């Protein structure tokens, strides 16, 4: 059988429906979400207007994202770009957490049943608390400690930049049980919201972009959780983890990386389409030479977005096929966000000074998109992953 780059018609139709809906119904609230540093207050009603099921957290009866032949991860990729096309505020209201991905990657069958399956079917948000003030990329530097005390693990330390940390069902916290073991001593612990000693010290940072997303600072102050909340372990502590906490964390992120590329692509495509339409109306204002340059720019930018999409589709295609390839996921995330920044900036430039106005959303999308090349593995971190598949651990 020959290669086929086309998605199945049902998935194309679904993606288009989500995209059009997100642009018409969600985008009008983009400015408000940015100003309030929160999704619009009436977000459940806005989600109610969707003509297709979205897999809502708050309203499971509104229907799950349908199954398509492509599989879960490719579907999720299409979904994520289409949702992001409207605006960046929509995605977290649909429970786009990543804590449960760690459960999936490291949990025992009992843990999967307790913390993965319910979240996947309900879409409830889950937090991923790895980053601390002193480190982000170098995850071996985890300083939060987990100490065994009889039937509990007791967590102490602070985490920053935890997406949806203040609103998640539970947060997966990375802590070290034995600092002398370095990275191998890092374990992942499920800390449900409301656990005594788990404090949200700052619900949301003041940020350049994605202001409507909660980015929380968390403190764990003698926070005691049951033994079985250590991922990969049972209550009696006898089953060794399949993977260390650190590699579990990174493995979980790998699946989600293309989704971040897809969000960036959604914003860049939205910018291109919005700018393209405005520019078409201004054609008469350009000299013929400049107008052909403008047209060529728009075409080239669309092609650049397509190249990024191909890489990310391939990465998620392999996950769905049961052959995940971390290097491909890193290529997708290494490619798209930085190029999307440039696309959005170029669109603003083509529109001239008026393109920077808050009357349009391009200035906001230029702020929003910057994070995509930083979190869930920075652009440099993706290059290291790819470099190591070429050159092994010697690659820096």
């Amino acid at each position, binding site marked *: 059988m020959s290669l086929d780059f086309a998605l199945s018609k049902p998935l194309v139709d679904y993606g288009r429906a989500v995209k059009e809906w997100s642009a018409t119904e969600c985008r009008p609230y983009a400015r408000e979400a940015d100003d309030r540093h929160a999704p619009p207050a009436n977000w459940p009603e806005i989600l109610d207007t969707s003509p297709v099921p979205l897999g809502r957290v708050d309203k499971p009866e509104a229907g799950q994202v349908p199954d398509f032949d492509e599989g879960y991860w490719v579907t999720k990729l299409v979904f994520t770009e289409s949702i992001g096309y409207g605006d960046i505020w929509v995605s977290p209201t649909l429970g786009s957490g990543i804590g449960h991905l760690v459960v999936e990657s490291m949990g025992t069958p009992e843990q999967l049943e307790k913390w993965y399956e319910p979240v996947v079917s309900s879409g409830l948000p889950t937090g991923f608390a790895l980053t601390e003030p*002193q*480190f*982000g*990329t*170098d995850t*071996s*530097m985890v300083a939060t400690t987990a100490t065994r005390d009889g039937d509990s693990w007791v967590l102490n330390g602070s985490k*920053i*930049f935890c997406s949806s940390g203040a609103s998640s069902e539970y947060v997966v916290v990375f802590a070290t049980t034995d600092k002398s073991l370095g990275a191998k001593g890092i374990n992942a612990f499920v800390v449900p919201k409301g656990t005594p000693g788990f404090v949200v010290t700052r619900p949301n*940072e*003041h*940020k*350049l972009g994605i202001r409507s997303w909660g980015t929380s600072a968390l403190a764990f102050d003698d926070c005691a959780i049951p033994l079985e909340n250590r991922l990969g372990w049972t209550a009696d502590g006898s089953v060794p983890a399949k993977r260390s906490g650190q590699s579990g964390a990174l493995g979980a992120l790998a699946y989600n990386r293309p989704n971040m590329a897809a969000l960036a692509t959604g914003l860049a495509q939205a910018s291109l389409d919005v700018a393209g339409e405005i520019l078409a109306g*201004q054609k008469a*204002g*350009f*000299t013929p030479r*400049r107008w052909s*340059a*403008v047209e*060529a*720019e728009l075409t*080239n*930018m669309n092609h*650049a977005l397509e*190249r990024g999409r191909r890489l990310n589709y391939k990465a998620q295609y392999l996950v769905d096929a049961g052959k995940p390839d971390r290097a491909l996921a890193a290529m997708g995330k*290494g*490619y798209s966000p*930085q*190029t999307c*920044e*440039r*696309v959005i*900036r*170029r669109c*603003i*430039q*083509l*529109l*001239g*000074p*008026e*393109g*920077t*106005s*808050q009357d349009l959303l391009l*200035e906001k999308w*230029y*702020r929003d998109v*910057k*994070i995509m*090349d*930083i*979190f869930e593995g*920075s*652009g*440099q971190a993706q*290059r*290291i992953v790819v470099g190591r598949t070429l050159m092994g651990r010697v690659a*820096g």
Partner: protein
Amino acid sequence: MLDLEPTEEHLAVAELARGLGLELLSPAAREAEAEQAVPEGVWRTLFETGLTVPVPEEFGGGGIPDTVTQMIAVEGLAYGDAGITLAAIWSGSAALLLARHGTEEQTALLRELAGNPDSRAAVALYEGHGRAPAEFTTSISRTADGSWRVQGRKVAVAFADRADPLIVVGVEPETGKLRAVFVPPSDPGVVIAADGRGLALDAAPTATVSFDVTVPADNLVGVAEDDAVALANTVGRIRLAVAAAQVGTAQRAVEYAAQYATERIAFGRPIAGFQGVSFPLAEAQIRIEAARLEIAEAATLLDGGEYGDRTETVTRVVNYAGEVAAEATRTAVQTLGGHGFIVEHPVELWYRTAAALSALDFDPLCSSFEPAL
């Protein structure tokens, strides 16, 4: 003969401007943005330095520096904050234009501009669409009775609503000559639509201004026989200031990020030890230096004895500096990682500022979109 040694004056101005940038402008940057106005004390102090309102000494000013020196001043001030710098420079550019091209009667206005810090003036210049001054579609044509009819639309006009004077730059269709005229902002033929907030640069309230207005003959800056090339070179100088502000912004961002990179530890060493961190910063620095030299050369051409229109040179360097600064500031944010995304650090402000400035005088013919990979 090649001479790339800065003069004593250049060095003195650079030091003064950078000092003001760091100590006066930079601490006020957030407030100026939030309030959409330069704090009064900051404006006064800046005004009193004479760096932003170039007026000859005979009119109570501190003299008009040459273009090279003025660009050094703008870069140094923008090292502190480009938003405040350009607010002052744009207001001051009307004085520059009058001092160089005004009739004797018109230059009398300079006393007020040089003496009163509360005065605001404006030059309505930019039109978007990549237009260079000679291509402006704002027309300034002579009517049968000798008055001037001004028709057109200008964007990003700072202080338009309160500017006194408001000077409009356009082209006389009959002769193709670049012209500048005084237009009263209160004339019913002047429609001022305030821009509101933008990506950055909110310290100077800007507006889109449409003109369809007829003004008396002596509202022309200078006289009809004046050389349009000289005017084009003054306009070139006003445009070039944006490139200098970009270089100041980029330089500050790169230095800030470089400092951070020497302090932030990952994988057992300062992140500056990784070429994934140090090379993008080094490349930004190479591009900044290239842009700075290009600005300086353009400035010497604008000042130079050799006669000629330098518009293309200015367009090229403004667009290059725009790309350089937009990429340098993105690199700065990237260097700080997640911390660069938080307003506790100023790199996010510079990221917005450089991108906003890069759209101001953008010409799609000067560069092409390049994907990152």
